[in-house]
Structure formats: C-alpha cells, structure tokens
C-alpha cells in the first residue's frame, strides 16, 4: 500500500456538500460513494441526486434519518438509477418521490459490500484503494466543536450516528490519519473534511464500512 492515498488527487471526489438542517447524512454518504466509483470507472464525475435517495428510499426516514445499508440495499434491489443532482435538486426536506422511466439516464448500483473492519484498519486502507471511497458510519458527537486537525482522543465508537465518506489516508507523518469528507459544508473542519487517527477504531470509523459497485 502507498504511504499516502487520496481519491481527490484522481479528481473522482465531488465538492463538499451541506445537508443543512436535515438528517440526510446517510444519503450524502451513499451518493458520494456511488458517484466516485462511477468516475473511477472512467465516466465523467457528476453530482448525483441526494434528494432522490432521500425521497424514494422507503425503508429510511428522509430527513429524520436513515441507514447507508438500507439505502444501498434499496438501490441494488430496485435497480433505481440515480439521476443528476441538476435534475432532482437537494431541498433539505423530505418530499414526494419523483419517478423516472427506466429509459431515463442515470447511475444504478449493481452491488455493494458491507464489513466491520475494527482491528483491521490496514485492510480497510487496502479496501479503500481497491474499491474507491467508502461510506462509513461514525460516532460524531464530539464533531460539534471540531475546527480542524487530527482527532486522536475523545471520539468514542459506542454509538454510531453519522454517515460520512472516507476518501483517503495519510501514514507519512507522525500521526497516520483517515481523510473523511463530511456533509456540513466547506466552512466546517478542514474545508469540509475531518482527519481521524488510524488505529484504535476512533469514532467507530471501521465498524460499518460499505463499498459500492456500479
């Protein structure tokens, strides 16, 4: 494995989004992984519709919350194609699901994997390099006060409550860390990103890790 790897360097990670006052992190995480994996496959990087997942993934609860696993299961089982964000823009409110004919262009999730990598963060690094950005669930209670830098303490792994996208890692410096894209806007953290020390399953980053196949 390279000492440092960042999918942003390959221009396959879209810009940081802002979920606003809506509990839609799970949809941002799933859509972020899907659009990146498609771009890794050689297609143009395109922002896909988070609102579509929010409105239509019926096993989840829209702005009241949801699970990345349930959203990915729904995408896989139904074969629903994610349309571009421009065609189904984000409103930060749960709305009525808009249906598109199968002939309409979009990106379908063919499959996904979901694993617990706790105690195996080296293997998770390998997974990231091989599969693309990973949708993970973390305990983000202490992120309310985060300004930047590498989180090394006070980030428990007991209560998973927030979905984010792991886009890279850096083990070159004194403190190895994960590079994680959040969906709270670019003014939060390190221009919208949070760095989490690798090892020790900080924030529960390795507990629930999903990779998308399109």
């Amino acid at each position: 494995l390279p000492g440092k790897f960042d999918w942003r360097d390959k221009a396959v990670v879209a810009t940081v989004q802002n979920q606003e006052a809506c509990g839609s992190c799970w949809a941002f995480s799933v859509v972020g992984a899907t659009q990146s994996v498609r771009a890794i496959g050689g297609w143009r990087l395109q922002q896909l519709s988070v609102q579509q997942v929010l409105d239509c993934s019926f096993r989840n609860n829209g702005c009241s919350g949801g699970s990345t696993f349930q959203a990915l299961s729904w995408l896989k089982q139904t074969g629903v194609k994610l349309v571009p964000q421009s065609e189904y823009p984000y409103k930060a409110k749960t709305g009525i699901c808009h249906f598109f004919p199968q002939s309409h262009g979009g990106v379908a999730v063919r499959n996904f994997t979901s694993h617990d990598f706790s105690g195996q963060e080296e293997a998770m690094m390998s997974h990231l390099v091989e599969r693309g950005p990973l949708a993970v669930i973390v305990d983000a209670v202490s992120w309310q006060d985060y300004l930047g830098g590498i989180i090394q303490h006070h980030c428990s792994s007991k209560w998973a409550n927030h979905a984010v996208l792991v886009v890279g890692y850096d083990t070159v410096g004194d403190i190895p860390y994960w590079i994680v894209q959040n969906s709270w806007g670019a003014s939060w953290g390190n221009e919208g990103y949070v760095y989490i020390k690798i090892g020790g399953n900080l924030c529960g980053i390795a507990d629930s890790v999903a990779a998308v196949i399109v």
Partner: protein
Amino acid sequence: SFRAHFRRAYEAEGEESNRRRRLHFQDATKRHAYLNSFSTLPQSAKYGVNRFSDLSQHEFRELYLRASADTAPPFSGLKTQR
C-alpha cells in the same frame, strides 16, 4: 461576535431563547477548553467556536446525527502489509 459572524437573530425568538442560546454557547466554550487540553501536538485536533456553538448537545444530535448502523459482518479478507 458569534451572532454577527453566523447571522443569528435571536430577538425574533424572544428573551427566553436568547438566554438559552447564551447558555449553550457558554457550555460549548467549557467543552472546547476541556477538549483542547488534550491537543499536545501541532497536528492535533482543535476545538472551538463554530456555527454549532449555540446548539445544545441534544439539539445537535437531533438535527445532524440521524444515521443508524446495521451490524456488518467482520471483514475476513487477507490481511495486508504496507
């Protein structure tokens, strides 16, 4: 300064809301001092005032921490070496 920077207009919400936001902000500054006491290296995380500082921890969870996790099977692939 916080209100000006993050464009908060508590007047519309009444005196009680104004008082409550001030208390949440004060609680946040106490948390920042505690969390920053562990930041010993230059690369360490820093904690401080941001746009969430006038929310209680409960409000923050209710608004932003709404994901749930399903139990995932342990990864059983080959271990890798750097």
